[in-house]
């Protein structure tokens, strides 16, 4: 408290405070400001609960209606759809009675705010006592002498305030006044309304009590049957009552209220009928009357203060310092959607003017403040919000207050909404299917006697008869399970004599349980025993339901607030009631054995089953199946664990913790002897170690949610809770490191853990108590790198199925819409098309649906292995099919793309085009071919699946079964492949083409202008051509490589060295092959080859190639040379795709080679030049330019002359090439002179 105050006074920087809250290591905080904080270190763990209490308290005035509108009191509660069931009322009523009236404060209106009526400081007998109690607690807690200023109200800091005088002031009259006040009573104004009951337990007294080594049992509670009014007497007779410090006593009362409210809730909610009708019915008529006070950002008071508190609050949420993330979000949304505020009396405002910065000033002085604060917090929590389902995002984004206060946040939300695919829909649960009879496990051979066999036969029939009867009647309010079926169930159980029959029946029971409740629809469809949820009805086929839907939207359903106690929704209720009615210890024991076994089996299941895909393409497809499978396993585990928890703790289940400490100790001593039914601690540790918490923790939570009051006190379970708490703290959502848990995985764990921490039997102080120890916790993640935790296995659908209470956020927002803008019809308008479209699509769905049903039915009576086999085959073949398409069709298309690109590049000439545009045009040409993928994929699946199925199924499988299995496998594989292909083929082609195009464009080398036509190798090419690198340097075929030739020619060389003309020819042939097969040809190699070939040509022209052979003949024969030149010309013309630096032929260096030869041979050069022109390899003008440049160089006199002659000759007869060539040849014998003469 002191901290908050100093924060508000801006004495301490916020950042430091946040650090201070999150860590308890003072060593890191050595700056001077923080030193002030570390002095307060003992208070650290009290900070968060205090902050939460403070906020709840501050906001209490937002929701109740002001005195001017007393008639509307119920309205406010309608606006907030949290439970307003009987238990909450009870608690409220008792509390309200204790406060003498002055300022009317509607208890009912407050109810929604408090998650639990009992959480508020209940039976405090009066304002002064209230403060007194708290003050004393705080004083003792602040051993350092720092007493929270709030505790003393107006008292100065530092003086511990003993509460006793105050207590004695007010206690007796108030207690006796209990019955005198009307249930919906009034509260005194206190001093400036500051004495509103807190909604949170301040844990301070608990720790204090701990230090006195008094176990928590001192918070005794009366038996559940006690009416609230009997409470004080219980208190007085309590052996602890007088021994406790006064603060503790008031706390004790509070606890009692809490317990009572909780246990009542707990008792009531599992019986499906009782609390539900209350929630919806009265609301719609009233919402219409309700006008929300408009909130105006300009009228926010003390912005800075609110911002600051919002920041601290958000930091606490972000660091998981609050027990339940979604509860806080719910609270914030309540603030956001608050209708109106209790009119604060002017005098209040004035009195607090002086001390603006202290905690005495109300934080929320107007609706504007509330909304501003809420929006601030929401801004900080955007990340979490963005992972909520689409419906919630939409409602948030459409909230006009939010738009008004933070357009930026609204924009982000809208973007998140538009980007979200997380449509959470609940499937209508399929009607029950029986567990099939499997001869392998069910025939006579599995029973000890004929009698047992026939008994079980009858039992099976009775079991289903009972189930059918339950299905027919359980929704009738007058029907009672025990009355209707109890005796029949017991009679049936009585027949089970042999142990083996028990195990048979348990197997049947468990299988049926899984079959009926495991599907997400089975459990989620009727959340908490309600009629189908709003979303269920969206898919409904009757337009008539639209009306119903509309009504429901206006009157949002409530399913027990954001923290409902554990229940058995839907058909789970049957199994719960069956266990209860059977009340057979044999059965329970067998059931526990069987459930434990199954839990272990599923928990240990290898998930994910496949290695993370190497290619992102179809691995994406695998993940969808993976995620589905994970969901099935997780939901099954949760269901089994829930029932295991239920049965295991059933014998210990009482309404109340034991009344005295001695009793509790003896119970503890006894219970600690009992080994846990399932070693959950080991499983949890394993799960954490193997990074599978996302699988293990949710079912563990289900199991623990049925623990009785003693369980958390047992060492074994306490250590489990400690582990869970540590995990909770470590799941900081904003941290998204490499290898960390995925966001939604974390969110799921936070949601279930948060829910667990709010379960009545889990001591509320547990969360804050352990706080101090948590910091040391580090998740040891050494074991497996590919743990499930880092795999995105959780999606919104699963999150909402596991935690339906998150949907409360949406309902809260929806209720706001219905109150403010519902009548404008925006909602209904938007829904109508959905309904009609689903109507239109219905016939199609049914014929497909029928086939799916048939396939499902087919597996039903076959051994389970058949199904596994078929699914496995379909899964693998489907996946392979995609790979196949990628390797064939897509690869071909990429080739086509390459050649198309070349054509386009050629057509556009040197300047090319915009690569993006090129890609677009290519894709538009090629993507339509993607349609073939479906045909080809189908064909692939049809070809491959039957063989695989046939190979995997036992040989005695009947032909009809086999062929059906094959066909289903084909169908499933095709569906899998085709659905992926049809959704992704275009993108896949695009991606591959894009990669190819960019590869090609890059391959054009450093000069982007030098884009010349390029082709792939011909289709028939088998890529056996010599490697370009070998050609250039390493090829040792006949000891002849280009480099060899060139180096030989360039010398120095040994006299015996040389190449044979045949080798030269071979070399050029290889070069041709190599150029035609583009497989291994990189652009630089091609450039290099081009250059080398030009050099070779120059050598040939200059007759500089040392020829092996008889010593007389060192020169290459003319004919040979000419042939080689022809080969080179054709290589240049046809095979090179990159530019060939032909101008090098006329470079001074290469021409200079000629100068060294005697006699000089010009005819080859002339021939070459003319051929170049002829073949369009070089332009006439280009050659002229080169020759012109040659003239400028320094040459020996005669050489210059000859060069000029050549020049003239070349220019002279450009059109008479052939004759001239011949002439050259004819002139061959005495070429030097001929040239000179001409």
């Amino acid at each position, binding site marked *: 408290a002191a901290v908050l105050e100093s924060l508000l006074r801006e004495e301490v920087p916020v950042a430091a405070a946040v650090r201070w809250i999150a860590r308890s290591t003072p060593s890191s905080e050595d700056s001077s400001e923080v030193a002030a904080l570390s002095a307060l270190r003992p208070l650290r763990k009290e900070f968060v609960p205090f902050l939460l209490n403070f906020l709840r308290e501050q906001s209490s005035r937002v929701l109740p209606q002001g005195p001017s509108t007393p008639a509307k009191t119920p309205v406010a509660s309608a606006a907030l759809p949290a439970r307003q069931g009987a238990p909450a009322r009870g608690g409220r009523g008792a509390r309200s009675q204790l406060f003498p009236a002055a300022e009317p404060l509607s208890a009912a209106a407050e109810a929604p705010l408090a998650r639990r009526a009992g959480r508020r400081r209940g039976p405090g007998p009066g304002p002064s006592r209230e403060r007194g109690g708290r003050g004393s607690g705080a004083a003792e807690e602040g051993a350092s002498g720092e007493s929270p200023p709030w505790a003393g109200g107006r008292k100065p800091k530092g003086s511990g305030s003993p509460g006793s005088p105050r207590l004695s002031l007010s206690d007796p009259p108030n207690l006796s006044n209990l019955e005198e006040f009307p249930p919906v009573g009034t509260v005194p104004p206190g001093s400036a309304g500051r004495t509103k009951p807190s909604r949170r337990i301040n844990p301070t007294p608990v720790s204090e009590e701990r230090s006195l080594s008094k176990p928590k049992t001192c918070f005794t509670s009366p038996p559940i049957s006690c009416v609230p009014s009997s409470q004080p007497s219980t208190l007085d007779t309590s052996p602890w009552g007088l021994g406790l410090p006064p603060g503790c006593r008031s706390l004790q009362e509070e606890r009692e209220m809490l317990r009572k409210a909780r246990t009542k809730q707990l008792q009531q909610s599992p019986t499906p009928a009782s609390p539900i009708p209350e929630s919806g019915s009265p609301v719609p008529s009233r919402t219409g009357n309700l006008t929300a006070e408009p909130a105006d950002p300009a009228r926010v008071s003390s912005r800075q203060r609110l911002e600051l508190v919002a920041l601290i609050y958000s930091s606490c949420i972000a660091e998981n310092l609050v027990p339940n993330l979604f509860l806080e979000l719910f609270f914030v949304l309540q603030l956001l959607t608050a209708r109106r505020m209790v009119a604060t009396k002017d005098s209040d405002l004035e009195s607090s003017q002086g001390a603006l910065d202290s905690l005495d000033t109300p934080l929320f002085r107007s609706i504007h403040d509330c909304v501003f604060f809420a929006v601030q917090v929401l801004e900080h929590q955007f990340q979490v919000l963005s992972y909520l389902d689409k419906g919630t995002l939409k409602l948030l984004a459409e909230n006009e207050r939010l738009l008004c206060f933070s357009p930026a946040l609204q924009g982000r939300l809208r973007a998140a909404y538009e980007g979200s695919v997380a449509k959470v829909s609940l499937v209508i649960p399929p*009607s029950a*299917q*029986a567990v*099939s*009879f499997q*001869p392998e496990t*069910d*025939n*006579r*051979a599995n029973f000890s006697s004929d009698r047992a*066999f*026939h008994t*079980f*036969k009858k039992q*099976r*029939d009775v*079991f*289903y*008869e009972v189930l*059918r009867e339950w299905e027919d009647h359980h929704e009738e309010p007058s029907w009672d399970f025990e009355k209707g079926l109890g005796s029949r169930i017991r009679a049936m159980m009585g027949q089970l004599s042999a142990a083996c029959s028990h195990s048979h029946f348990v197997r049947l029971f468990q299988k049926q349980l899984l079959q009926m409740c495991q599907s997400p629809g089975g459990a989620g469809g009727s959340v908490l025993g309600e009629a189908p949820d709003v979303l269920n009805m969206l898919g409904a086929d009757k337009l008539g339901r639209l009306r119903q839907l509309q009504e429901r939207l206006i009157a949002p359903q409530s399913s027990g607030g954001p923290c409902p106690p554990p229940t058995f929704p839907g058909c789970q209720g049957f199994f719960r009631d069956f266990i209860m009615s059977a009340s057979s210890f044999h059965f329970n024991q067998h059931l526990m054995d069987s459930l434990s076994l199954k839990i272990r089996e599923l928990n240990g299941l290898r998930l994910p089953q496949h290695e993370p895909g190497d290619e992102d393409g179809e691995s994406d497809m695998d993940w969808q199946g993976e995620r589905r499978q994970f969901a099935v396993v997780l939901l099954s585990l949760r269901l089994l664990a829930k029932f295991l928890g239920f049965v295991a703790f059933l014998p210990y289940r009482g309404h109340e913790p034991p009344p005295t400490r001695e009793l509790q100790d003896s119970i503890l001593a006894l219970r600690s002897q009992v080994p846990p039914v399932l070693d959950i601690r080991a499983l949890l540790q394993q799960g954490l170690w193997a990074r599978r918490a996302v699988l293990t923790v949710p079912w563990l939570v289900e199991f623990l949610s049925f623990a009785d009051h003693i369980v958390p006190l047992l060492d074994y379970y306490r250590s489990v809770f400690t582990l869970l708490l540590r995990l909770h703290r470590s799941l900081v959502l904003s941290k998204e490191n490499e290898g960390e848990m995925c966001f939604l995985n974390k969110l799921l764990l936070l949601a279930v853990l948060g829910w667990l921490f709010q379960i009545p039997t889990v001591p509320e102080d547990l969360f804050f108590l352990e706080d101090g120890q948590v910091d040391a916790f580090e998740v040891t993640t050494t074991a497996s790198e590919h743990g499930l935790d880092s795999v995105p296995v959780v999606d919104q659908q699963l999150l909402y199925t596991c935690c339906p209470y998150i949907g409360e956020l949406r309902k809260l927002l929806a209720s706001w819409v219905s109150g403010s803008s519902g009548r404008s019809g925006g909602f209904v308008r938007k829904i109508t098309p959905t309904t009609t479209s689903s109507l239109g699509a219905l016939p199609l769905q*049914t014929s497909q649906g*029928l*086939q799916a*049903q*048939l*396939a499902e*039915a*087919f597996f*039903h*009576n076959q051994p389970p292995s058949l199904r596994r086999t078929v699914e496995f085959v379909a899964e693998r073949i489907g996946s392979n099919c995609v790979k196949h398409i990628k390797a064939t069709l897509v690869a071909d298309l990429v080739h086509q793309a390459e050649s198309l690109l070349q054509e386009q590049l050629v057509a556009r000439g040197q300047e090319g085009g915009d690569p993006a545009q090129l890609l677009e045009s290519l894709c538009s040409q090629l993507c339509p071919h993607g349609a073939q993928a479906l045909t080809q994929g*189908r064909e692939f*699946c*049809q070809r491959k699946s039957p063989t695989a199925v046939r190979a995997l199924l036992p040989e005695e499988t*009947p*032909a*009809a*079964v086999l*062929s*059906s299995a094959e*066909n*289903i496998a*084909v*169908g499933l594989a*095709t569906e899998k492949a085709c659905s992926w292909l049809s959704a992704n083929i275009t993108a896949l082609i695009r991606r591959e083409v894009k990669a190819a195009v960019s590869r090609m464009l890059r391959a054009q080398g450093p000069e982007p202008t030098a884009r010349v036509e390029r082709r792939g190798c011909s289709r028939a090419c088998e890529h056996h051509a010599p490697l370009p690198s070998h050609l250039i340097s390493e090829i040792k075929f006949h000891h002849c490589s280009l480099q060899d030739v060139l180096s030989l020619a360039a010398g120095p060389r040994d006299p015996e060295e040389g190449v044979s003309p045949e080798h030269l020819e071979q070399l050029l042939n290889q070069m041709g092959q190599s150029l035609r097969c583009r497989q291994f040809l990189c652009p630089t190699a091609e450039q290099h080859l081009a250059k080398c070939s030009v050099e070779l040509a120059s050598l040939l022209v200059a007759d500089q190639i040392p020829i092996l052979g008889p010593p007389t003949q060192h020169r290459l024969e003319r004919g040979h040379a000419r042939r080689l030149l022809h080969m080179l010309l054709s290589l240049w013309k046809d095979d090179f795709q990159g530019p060939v630096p032909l101008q090098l032929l006329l470079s001074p260096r290469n021409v200079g080679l000629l100068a060294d030869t005697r006699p000089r041979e010009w005819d080859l050069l002339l021939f070459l030049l003319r051929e170049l022109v002829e073949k369009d390899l070089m332009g006439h003008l280009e050659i002229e330019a080169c020759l012109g440049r040659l003239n400028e160089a320094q040459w020996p006199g005669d050489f210059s002359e000859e060069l000029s002659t050549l020049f003239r000759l070349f220019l002279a007869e450009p059109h008479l090439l052939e004759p001239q060539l011949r002439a050259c040849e004819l002139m061959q014998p005495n070429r030097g002179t001929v040239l000179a003469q001409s």
Partner: protein
Amino acid sequence: MILTKAQYEEIAQCLVSVPPTRQSLRKLKQRFPSQSQATLLSIFSQEYQKHIKRTHAKHHTPEAIESYYQRYLNGVGKNGAAPVLLELANEVDYAPSLMARIILERFLQGHEQTPPSKSVINSMLRDPSQIPDGVLANQVYQCIVNDCCYGPLVDCIKHAIGYEHEVLLRDLLLKKNLSFLDEDQLRAKGYDKTPDFILQVPVAVEGHIIHWIESKASFGDECSHHAYLHGQFWSYWNRFGPGLVIYWYGFIQELDCNRERGILLKASFPTDIVTLCHSTA
């Protein structure tokens, strides 16, 4: 052949205290020309059986037996060729075959010291020529052939009809290329409850999944259907999932109310059978 409950009750009303003879049946046929003979017979038989069950006890009191026997003796004493026993049965509103059994039992008790065993009597009823008394044999025979609801003859006919329809169904299944396991195969595999046919690959009829088919060569009235549901159909469902019952002689429309739950009623072999699609569309 599928009757509404009202239609059915109209027929049943006509059958109150009508003797189970050809003549009655003919009249019934004239009264309800639109109904098939087999359906009417089946309904007749069932109604009559209900009636007999109700009155069974009163015909089996020792006094009643004695009085019937005396009347029989008197009757045949006057005229052995007259249909004494048949007329007696019709007069006291009891099934002729059953009346024959009562008299036969009484007769044998009178002639032999030990009470006759059931199997002896059954055997004699099946083959009246075994009856030591020629007159009684004739009288018994007359009763049996004139009784269209009870007696070994009727039992035999019923059994034959049941079997025929099973064969018919089997042929239809084979023709439709639906593979199945029949009762005998199922028993051999150790199934505890066995419908007539289990389809190895389920089909859909009128949008409902069918795992098994039970053939009933009778009319499905309330009484028999409920008995079948309890003893057979639900048990099948409990083991094999939803299935189809064919009441070849029709049934009361209102009884077909468990379709959604997995018991589908038909009066003939279904025409619109959807099989698991073998071609992947």
